[in-house]
């Protein structure tokens, strides 16, 4: 009976707040739609023209891995989006608690909303992805680029990622709404808001220890991989893969200890005037939120940089080989750069998803700070100072994520290449793909500005009197 009063969407309602969940699930669904349809058409082509059947399985495995990566990044982004929304509604939730709503009921309503919107987004995205790929295919067949065999519209395998994404949104809604449980009815009565709940110390210690073991172990395996590569052992690449996966997992688990510190460090570079100080404090006000809002970007940038850097290191190694004709050299160049483009195009989705998440979190957190910004205006922050505060917060977060991702990617990529062809060159070769590094840096800067501009504009428009009204 108490559920009747707490309808779905009561806690987590406005389209702007739910938009991120739908959009991210949609992007992920579209990505799955494109990958699955593309691999089903490649399989059809391979079986009907060459009579090959093994290609299908290979493609399925590869696209599953890529889709899972995208699903993981989407999950991080959705957890964060839900958490941000809940954090902005603490008072409302507390009031509902005061009126007798059970915390589990409220949390359930958040979770169902996220799941429903996520499923809708996943289906819509998948349909769009399939349609786009099929239209593209029809054009290519018409032009004679692809052979005119019979192609399936898509593969029934697509149901799996769509179901996975919907379930992921539901689960992310559950994880992201954990703070609902910590809201007490008394909080509706006190003026204090946004008090970050203290994390559970004992689980933090276990988590930190686990993360350190994985990171240190992974790093050791990576060093071993580089050494094996130098010796020309075939086990090198396998070791590099294991090392990267282990240390990467360690980083994901331990990110909440590392990332807020890095952001705080980056924040120090901003300056010490009041706008910078408030920006810095806001960027790390809730370490978990800081971590989640940047982690997607870190993963995306790391993936892109790893591929670009690894390919670049291979290129450098190939260039140093003697006994290649100019023609062969040109050919390997073409092959390597085509592979780089294709792979980067495939993994760049993680960057897109996390950028979408970042922009929407920035915008939501500024909306939630209306009163604080009104107060700052009343105390004498000029419009320019408010704008600089929002931009600096965005810069501290996105800048740290991009820099961290670049550093990780350069390490992983170069070690990967070293483990394959280290014996061909003297010592360790850093793959420094300047063009890609430059692009990532420029896109990162654009992201900072794009994420900051609309909320900054809205923040400047906030009149000081708005700080004085309790309920606005």
């Amino acid at each position, binding site marked *: 009976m108490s559920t009747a009063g707490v309808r779905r969407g009561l806690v987590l309602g406005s389209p702007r707040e739910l938009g991120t969940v739908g959009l991210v699930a949609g992007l992920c669904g579209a990505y799955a739609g494109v990958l699955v349809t593309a691999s089903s058409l490649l399989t059809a082509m391979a079986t009907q023209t060459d009579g090959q059947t093994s290609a299908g399985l290979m493609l399925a495995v590869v696209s599953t891995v890529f889709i899972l990566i995208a699903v993981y990044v989407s999950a991080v982004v959705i957890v964060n989006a839900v958490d941000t929304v809940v954090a902005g509604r603490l008072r409302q939730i507390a009031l509902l608690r005061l009126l007798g709503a059970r915390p589990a009921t409220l949390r359930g309503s958040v979770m169902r909303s996220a799941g429903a919107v996520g499923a809708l987004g996943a289906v819509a995205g998948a349909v769009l992805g399939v349609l786009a790929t099929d239209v593209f295919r029809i054009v290519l067949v018409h032009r004679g680029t692809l052979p005119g065999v019979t192609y399936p519209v898509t593969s029934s395998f697509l149901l799996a990622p769509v179901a996975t994404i919907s379930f992921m949104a539901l689960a992310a809604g559950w994880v992201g709404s954990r703070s609902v449980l910590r809201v007490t009815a008394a909080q509706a009565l*006190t*003026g*204090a*808001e*946004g*008090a970050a709940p203290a994390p559970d110390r004992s689980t933090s210690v276990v988590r930190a220890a686990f993360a350190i073991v994985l990171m240190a172990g992974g790093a050791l395996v990576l060093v071993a991989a580089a050494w094996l590569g130098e010796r020309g052992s075939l086990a090198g690449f396998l070791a590099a893969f294991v090392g990267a996966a282990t240390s990467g997992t360690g980083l994901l688990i331990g990110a909440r200890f590392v990332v807020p510190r890095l952001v705080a460090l980056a924040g120090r570079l901003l300056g010490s*005037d*009041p706008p910078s*100080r*408030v920006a810095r*404090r*806001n960027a790390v*006000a809730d370490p978990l939120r800081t971590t989640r809002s940047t982690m997607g970007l870190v993963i995306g940038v790391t993936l892109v940089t790893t591929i670009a850097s690894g390919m670049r290191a291979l290129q450098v190694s190939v260039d140093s080989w003697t006994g290649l004709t100019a023609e062969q050299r040109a050919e390997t160049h073409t092959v390597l750069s085509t592979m780089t483009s294709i792979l980067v195009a495939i993994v760049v989705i993680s960057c897109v998803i996390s950028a979408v998440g970042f922009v929407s979190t920035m915008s939501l957190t500024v909306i939630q700070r209306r*009163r*604080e910004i009104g*107060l*700052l*205006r*009343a*105390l*004498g*922050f*000029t*419009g320019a100072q408010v704008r600089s505060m929002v931009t600096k917060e965005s810069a501290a977060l996105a800048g740290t994520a991009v820099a961290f991702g670049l550093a990780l990617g350069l390490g992983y990529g170069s070690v990967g290449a070293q483990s394959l062809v280290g014996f061909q060159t003297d010592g360790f070769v850093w793959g420094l793909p300047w063009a890609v590094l430059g692009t990532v840096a420029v896109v990162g800067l654009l992201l900072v500005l794009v994420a900051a501009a609309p909320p900054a504009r809205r923040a400047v428009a906030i*009149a*000081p*009197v708005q*700080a*004085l009204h*309790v309920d606005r």
Partner: protein
Amino acid sequence: MTPSQPHPVLSFRDVHRVYGEGSGAVRALDGVTVDVEPSRFTAVMGPSGSGKSTFMNLAAGLDDPTSGEVWLAGQPLHAMDEDRRTRLRRDHVGFVFQAFNLVPTLTARENVVLPFELAGRRLTADDRARIDGLLESLGLLARAGHRPAALSGGQQQRVAIARALAIGPHVVIADEPTGNLDTRSSREVLSLMRTAADEYRQTILMVTHDPVAASYADRIIVIADGRIVGDHPGLAPAAIADLMVSLEVGAA
């Protein structure tokens, strides 16, 4: 400007403030004309919803009058753009609001120091001593390193008072600064404001419902239905209480 009389630090000239339009319009202020002389402690009283907070917000340049003129420190607030008003506020006004006074990400002490930083002023040894003195007399020294979320409502309000007084602004605008305080801390706050007016020559404008608090002031302005209905020199608590009762009887 007549040389014999002090130039008022704050003037209202036939100020109206109307919220909304048409039949639903609320006349929060309805033709207010008043002058406030420097280094005086003025109490603003009146029933709930009579327009006191609206009056204070206009005086501080936080809100625009629908019509009329508001002059602060010789400058026409009603004719200034938001950026110039912001600067004027920063340089001349200290506030204590009815609720939500502190920047949540800054500690109590950082909140108190914020106006200095915004004015681009380096803290001198004198400033530090004054800030410590304020925090001490408001019983906040031990809590100075805490964020607002870890302070009680009354403590938050006292931090806001310390902030409003610390930089020594010409005008301190306080909307029910003692609303959340017990008798002792409220007396502490009131004598701090009295000292600010007497020794530091600051102009204090304070909204209160409490006759004892109003008795610390040397002028009492009474607002009802958006108009000034009474303007008295300093009174004793009992006389003020009578005044408020007569107002309620008159309204009934």
